[in-house]
């Protein structure tokens, strides 16, 4: 039985972007319906329309065959539609129970006082009912990401959601947590709920969904039963052409060590040790991948190595030259390129032009600056070259970066960093939030550069990505390096998972052997 339908939805954003072009979606009662598509395909917009965050330019939404208008999230909640956003909408300093009842607090008689006892009971009951374990009394900022996500789901259920929209819920989870989430989703469906699951990871689609709707270029490509399709077919539908999911990593002899890190420690201003005595080397023609649950020191490692954070102690050498303690320029002068984790914060200046974004590491050197003046012609030419060379979809380098899509912004960053002819590339989450086509492209670039002699330090929350690209894999847990592995076919996700969760660790000797 059809529960909710979106019919011919058109959504034009004020800046002229057509995000949904006569999109149709039909979700049955009690199913897990996956919505897949590349970034910018319009998935999130469609869900925002369903949840009342955006108003469709035209089109109709039907709930149980009745046309409904949803002006605001409040309307959506009243209709039993709940949404769990990619970025959690929780009050960090509140307890989980407080977060769940926020805005619908139970009161005891008089309306002025919140009955927190009741809130805790309600939370526990809800948590048991759907098998979504949370600790009602814990503060949100002290619990792991997986639990925060469960809080979001419970929050929606507490408000009476019958339809749950999960927007890329696995992007922030470890493999183990993903499994837990899938169990919980199955339990929800057993309890009669309906789940719309947004993702661009096809493996997950195959693992959990009943039916899949594929979107591409703001349109719906089609809806298929999961059982009757394959990852390859879905990928083809998403991208509109054949996609090579497997990257060919030609064997190559690694060269001299480029980066040598010795006993690197970083203690933040609150006295927390975020990076604990890390030592490792990265060689020419090698990709060293760092695996680990997010928040185990990878970010700090990258930022210390690139000069964005000061090391508390320890040393790092690039080609034998010490690079720490003098800020990013020293690191860049040592020919270290850096694809930053959060490109919107660090990687680009949105309001500046593409050309200006492409020269931030080199503007002061000839040929970009000659006798004290910027050479605008040279800057424009090299910008045009990079736009062409790296396939950045932009009509002109004089456009602000803000006018580009997420994937193209990432390409701007990649173009700049790879064109700096680096010795070492530190790539943090290089494909986060990037669509399949761009992922394929970036992966190929990394492999090619590595084959041509570049040393690459790769940090990714996506274990699959690490395993696909790396020659060696280093696992971080709690700020420490707990294991180093050669990426041979017999290395399994499960093995790495044990190290990632701190259940196992190698001895220093074992690690030294694999340096």
């Amino acid at each position, binding site marked *: 039985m059809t529960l909710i339908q979106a019919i011919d939805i*058109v959504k*034009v954003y*004020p*800046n*002229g*972007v*057509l995000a949904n*072009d006569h999109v149709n979606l039909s979700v049955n009662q009690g199913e897990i319906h996956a919505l897949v598509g590349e970034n910018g395909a319009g998935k999130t917009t469609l869900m925002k329309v369903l949840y009342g965050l955006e108003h469709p*330019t*035209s089109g109709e939404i039907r709930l149980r065959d009745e046309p409904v208008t949803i002006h605001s999230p409040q309307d959506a909640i009243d209709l039993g539609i709940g949404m769990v956003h990619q970025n959690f909408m929780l009050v960090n300093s509140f307890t989980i129970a407080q977060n769940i009842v926020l805005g619908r607090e139970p009161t005891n008689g008089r309306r002025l006082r919140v009955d927190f006892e009741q809130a805790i009971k309600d939370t526990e009951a809800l948590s048991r009912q759907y098998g979504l374990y949370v600790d009602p009394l814990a503060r949100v900022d002290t619990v792991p990401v997986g639990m925060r996500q469960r809080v979001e789901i419970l929050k929606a259920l507490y408000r009476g959601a019958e339809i749950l929209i999960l927007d890329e819920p696995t992007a922030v989870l470890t493999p183990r947590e993903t499994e837990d989430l899938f169990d919980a989703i199955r339990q929800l469906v057993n309890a009669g709920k309906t789940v719309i699951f947004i993702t661009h990871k096809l493996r997950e689609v195959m693992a959990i969904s009943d039916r899949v709707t594929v979107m591409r*270029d*703001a*349109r719906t490509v089609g809806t298929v039963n999961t059982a009757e399709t394959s990852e390859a077919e879905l990928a083809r539908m998403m991208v509109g052409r054949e996609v090579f999911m497997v990257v060919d990593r030609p064997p190559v002899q690694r060269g001299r060590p480029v980066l040598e890190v010795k006993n690197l420690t970083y203690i933040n201003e609150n006295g927390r040790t975020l990076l604990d005595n890390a030592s490792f080397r990265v060689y020419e023609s090698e990709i060293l991948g760092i695996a680990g649950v997010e928040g185990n020191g990878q970010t700090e490692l990258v930022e210390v190595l*690139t000069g*964005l954070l000061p090391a508390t102690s320890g040393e790092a050498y690039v080609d034998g030259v010490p690079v720490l303690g003098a*800020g*990013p*320029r020293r*690191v*860049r*002068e040592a020919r270290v390129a*850096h694809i*930053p984790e959060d490109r919107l*914060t*660090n*990687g*680009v*200046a*949105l*309001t*500046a*032009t593409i050309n*200006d*974004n492409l*020269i*931030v*590491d080199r*503007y*002061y050197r000839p040929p970009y*600056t000659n006798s*004290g*003046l*910027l050479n*605008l012609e040279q800057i424009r030419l090299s910008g045009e070259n990079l736009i062409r060379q790296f396939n950045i979809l932009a*009509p*002109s380098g*004089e*456009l*602000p970066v*803000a*006018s580009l899509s997420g994937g193209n912004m990432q390409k701007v960053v990649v173009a700049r960093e790879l064109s700096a002819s680096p010795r070492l590339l530190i790539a943090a989450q290089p494909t986060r939030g990037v669509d399949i086509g761009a992922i394929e492209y970036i992966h190929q670039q990394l492999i090619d550069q590595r084959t041509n002699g570049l040393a690459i330090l790769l940090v990714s929350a996506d274990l699959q990505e690490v395993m696909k690209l790396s020659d060696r894999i280093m696992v971080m847990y709690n700020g420490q390096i707990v294991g180093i592995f050669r990426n041979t076919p017999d290395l399994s996700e499960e093995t790495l998972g044990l190290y990632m969760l701190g259940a196992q660790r190698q001895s220093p000797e074992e690690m030294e052997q694999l340096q």
Partner: protein
Amino acid sequence: MNPRRSLATRSGGLLVLSVLIGLLLLLAISMRVFGITASMSLDEMRGAIQAAPDYGAILLVNALIGVSMMLMIYELRWDALRVILTVAVALVFGYLMTAFFNLDAANRLSSGEFRVNVVSDVGPLVDIYYGDRPSGEFTGPDADEPLTEASYRFAGSAGDVLTIMAFAEEEDSPLDLQLTLLGPDGEAVAENLDASDEQRQEYRRQLESPGDAILENIELPADGVYTIVVRPEPQSEVQVGEFNVRLDTDAPSPIDFTYNQPIGAVFNAPNVDNPLTEASYRFLGRADDRVSVLAYVFRSNIEVDLQVELIGPDGSVLGQANDSTEEQRATFRGLLQRETDAALEGVRLPEDGIYTVRARPEPVGFGTKLSETVKATNKAYNAFLFGPLSRLNRWVTWIKDAITLIMLGLAIAIVFRAEQFSLGAEGQLYFGALVSGVIGLSFGEIPKPVLVPLALLSAATAGFLWGLLPGALKAYLGANELVSTLMLNTIAMRFYEMVLTFELQPPNAGYTASDWIPDNGLLAPIIDVSGDQVTIAVFILILIVLFAWVLIRRTPIGYEIRMIGANIKFANYGGVNTKRTIMLAMAISGAVAGLAGAHLALGIHRKLILNISLGMAFEGVVVALLARNNPLVVPFTGLLYSYLRVGAQFMERDANVSSEVVRIIQAVVILLITAEALVTFVQRRRRVRRDRLSSDIQPSERLMAAPPQPPA
């Protein structure tokens, strides 16, 4: 920055358009300033131009104004419309506010001082009223103008109890006075020669001489005109001397005035608790007297529109008048002044008795009120919008003000480019003014070509250092630049005042100011309109604009400034030394602000005075914001904003509307720019509608739909 803007092309068409508009502006301004009209012949035009002093330089400056407009259009493209629209909306608000302040414009028709007069050939019927205290001097029968007896007529009512005194001016005077009260029929009602001892005791402050006379508590027997007669007692030896008369009573006077003696007050005086809206005055009239009742304004520039009524003793209205004819104004020349004065001519009074004249402003209708308000507002706005071009010296005032404002706008544009919200231009300006002023004052013997550049350079350096300080505080200590610059402003201002008061002020000066800066230290004038000068600061300004433009657009430092402005984390990630850039941005901005201070000291005031900046630095913020922090646009927005500032001054002078209106305009401009909500809203609505109309176009086409690129 929206993509459309950047997609728009800098085509030749835009260049031609901007040049044309710039030329039009040059023409329009020049025509107004030189007083040229389209109907003049070419020779007359040339004559009009050549009649102006330094007309070549004036034309040059006007051309520069045209260039600034051209640059604005060329640089901002579509955003240029936004600048104009923003100012236009602000002007509309300003108009509404001016109208609001002029809502009382019609009040002048119902308020003002007036006089009422009953003109008769008979002459005054009474000389004094209750409570009057006339005085005189007996001169004896042998004097040139002998006064041996004084008589005073007054109107009295039956039953009023009066006390009348006649006493010598001097204490213990030998003058022996005789006081007689005559009734309406001419018979004596009472007489007194000398006051008793008890009376002298009771009224000892008046009755100080033994010969003083008093009529105490006399009850008047009938209505009518009584006469007080005072004379020295005939048998007295002393027949000369000054004397006083008092007519005291608790009773109200039966009349307020008499024939030919005007009386009046102020209708609807502003700022009083109970404004007078109607006035009634009583006078004594006699049967068959021919009188003309007039109500007229006190001075010819008072515009109250009067009406007048004459009411008889029985309460009946004997006549009424609203206006006066030209003949009447000729007849009563010196009294009636305006057509709106009221004249009721040649009324024959029917009986003896007390008549009343009632005067009031004629009621003003809503239509009149509205049209008066609009008229007054238009007059004010005309002065506001065209005042700076109405006379050459006003034009000079505008240009002088604009030069300072543009310098400050550039200073702020530089620092805002780096997203550093430094408001330190004020303090930097003070230091610039102080340093350049001191150098100009102290080294007057150094030749001008050396001294002026030295003073300017020192001012720039002082501003640079005073900007470096908050920059360093921000870069190394994380001190909020907004707070630190505002604090440093106060320090700079007080330091300036201290040096000025204790070191520079000449000892004999009446107010706090330095001596005039010797000529060698002053910026040389290029235009001199009877003392009002535009100096070579114009050329210095052009250099600063070019400097700021090259700095921001063409230098690595400018790139760093732009990048830390766009995203400081990105700049840091890319290897930019963000601390150094923050300091440099603030210091360079300070140097420009210091030059603005030097311009004030050496070019405008020509000495150091208190409050030399008059808070202009903050107006520089408006200028920079309007220009989107673009150094090439700042000259135009500076000129535009200065035009409004100066215009507001002239409005205040010409139209009596407070120049604070320009504050409202300023506030609206800031609001609009900060929010830009209105414009964006309108654009969004328009675009959504357009997209709805064309929603069948392929999405890829839509996304790529951009104006064609310029040829490389």
